[in-house]
């Protein structure tokens, strides 16, 4: 995954000299998570810029640079730190094109890794997809595979809109097929069906896309339930059609995310499904989310606060209770 993201940036930097990378420790240190490894050597310090620890100004400088004709790729060290830059992301990057009536655009990417599982406690482990999903003017990407990550990041860099690009720290090490085609991009707003099924639709994002797939395999094996797994890949725009098509087939939906339950990705999606496909639903839409607490440090507590396959299976069983022969 790391390499896929790195190569996406390197290819786009070769393609367009106005693309540059900046963030805390992206250069000499090679990136806090080593995603920008080697870029400084390859492109030099004009295009790979180490910044002071000043999140709001890093993003704001990116916004200004984008208004001035460049295409910045800004890295924030974690999604938790992105909260320090919320003013520039929401009040500026997202608002400027609209509030100035399209007379200026903000073509920039703000990359940020998040998610729990590394015992980093309540200030380094959160998932704020829902926060950014809410903001009109932003695009929000949340890739779960190396191939998608590369193709989506390339699309994000070429796109004219400000993009919040959320990565999951636990996925950096995973392997997967990645296209070498420098022209291949993945358009925003295209969900993918990871596994076909007929009894229930499971929607999962980021790491939870993988958890959903594993749960689906076990549901098939142990419970005889055929689950369809969908990874939306981008939350704004959201490919609701693919999800609805699936729900109209399976009549049941379970949404899996690592973030908090209230006002979450699942809450939003559940509403949309209920509004648009109510007549097709045979059971209430189920949500599997992270626990409604700041992420605790203790290994066992942290794991308890995160969704796992068994939680997904439980939710699917609740949604299909009595309706499917096991």
């Amino acid at each position: 995954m790391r390499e896929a993201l790195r190569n996406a940036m390197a290819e786009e930097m070769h393609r367009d000299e106005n693309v540059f990378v900046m963030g805390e420790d992206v250069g000499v240190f090679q990136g806090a998570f080593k995603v920008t490894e080697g870029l400084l050597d390859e492109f030099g310090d004009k295009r790979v810029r180490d910044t002071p620890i000043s999140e709001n100004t890093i993003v704001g400088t990116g916004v200004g640079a984008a208004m001035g004709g460049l295409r910045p790729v800004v890295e924030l060290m974690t999604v938790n730190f992105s909260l320090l830059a919320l003013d520039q992301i929401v009040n500026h990057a997202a608002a400027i094109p609209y509030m100035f009536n399209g007379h200026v655009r903000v073509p920039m990417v703000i990359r940020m890794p998040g998610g729990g599982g590394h015992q980093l406690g309540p200030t380094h482990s959160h998932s704020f997809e829902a926060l950014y999903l809410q903001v009109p003017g932003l695009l929000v990407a949340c890739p779960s595979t190396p191939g998608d990550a590369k193709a989506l990041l390339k699309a994000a860099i070429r796109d004219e809109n400000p993009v919040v690009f959320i990565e999951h720290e636990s996925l950096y090490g995973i392997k997967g097929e990645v296209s070498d085609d420098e022209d291949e991009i993945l358009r925003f707003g295209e969900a993918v069906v990871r596994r076909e099924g007929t009894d229930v639709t499971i929607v999962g994002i980021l790491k939870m896309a993988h958890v959903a797939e594993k749960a689906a395999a076990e549901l098939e094996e142990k419970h005889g339930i055929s689950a369809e797994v969908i990874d939306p890949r981008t939350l704004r725009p959201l490919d609701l059609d693919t999800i609805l098509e699936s729900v109209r087939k399976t009549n049941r939906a379970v949404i899996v995310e690592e973030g908090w339950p209230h006002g979450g990705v699942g809450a939003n999606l559940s509403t949309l499904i209920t509004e648009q496909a109510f007549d097709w639903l045979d059971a209430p839409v189920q949500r599997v989310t992270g626990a409604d607490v700041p992420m605790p440090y203790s290994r066992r507590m942290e794991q308890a606060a995160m969704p796992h396959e068994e939680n997904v299976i439980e939710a699917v069983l609740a949604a299909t209770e009595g309706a499917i022969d096991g």
Partner: protein
Amino acid sequence: MAGLPDRNIALDLLGRMCLIRRFEEEAGRQYQRAKAGGFLHLAIGEEATIVGTTSVMRSDDYLIGTYRTHGHALARGTPADEVMAELFGKETGTSGGRGGSMHIFDAERRFMGGYGIVGGNLPLAAGLGLASQYKGEDSVTVCMFGDGASNTGNFGETMNLAALWDLPVLFLVENNLYGMGTALERHSAVTDLSQKAAGYGIEGERIDGMDLLEVRERVGEHLESVRDSGKPSLVEAFTYRYRGHSAADPEVYRDKSEVEEWREKDPIESFIRRCLDGGVLDQDDVAAARREADETVEAAVEFADESPEPALESLYEELYVVSETMGWYSVDERSPEPHRGELGEDAPEVMKELAESGAAHASEERERQTREGVRE
């Protein structure tokens, strides 16, 4: 003391200051008449700082300001018609009625916007400076902000970054002595704001922002030094707003006598006096400048009044650029209609569908508003 400019320049400077004064007075009146909505921040009293600065800038320099920037746009050459129309929320406004008084914008004249968040424009200025530096252009970005903004985190962060990266930005504090209703000595531990620059290795200078000629001379020198060295600089211009923070400010925090004292130093009157004394302008010139400002502003009000409201059908326009990297986006999830998703590979066709869907929603909304008497 800086010398007087020649007649043509003096006329131009006087004309711009008179225009701002007249425009702001009229904007205040139109606000009372509810023609302009929201918040209205007037810069009456600050004309010399504004015009003095813009008059020494090049056309390819960037200017970025605060929520008190009708005058900055006017000084940069944006037609008064368009600024007034923006205040009126009309389609012909600088931001098509989407921005309002606090968010005037004119890309063509490199006025990169007024911003409603105190200190929010500082990082943007660093970014504009970075863009110029990156492209090897010698444009300077002039970033104007108030004394209140010098207490924000953005100030420290941006000053540090600009100094660290040698960004061609001239930071210009329009110190009008109040952060909203909180006086300078009550909001800043260091009241000589030019001193704040030293902590970042930036040169800072305090100047008389009521004296047009001093502003021109000092800001001009800083501007060229930034251009030549590529390093940022800071100017603190002492100025004063006669009106409240916004039109809704009862001004309980200052004495009327203080306002009167500053009026004695009125930037327009003092400039006129010097031009008359120096024989650069005569009374007819002054009368003509005032008359022209009156006429321009009168015409601007008429233009704004007669301009159409933004079409409700355009509610979703300019939010996103839909290109080949972005397949589609859902226009409005509130719609009870079946979801309109990707209908084809052809983006323009999708955009058309989206526009129609948005228009349909807007029409319903308009009917509802009419029915419920929300609008006339």
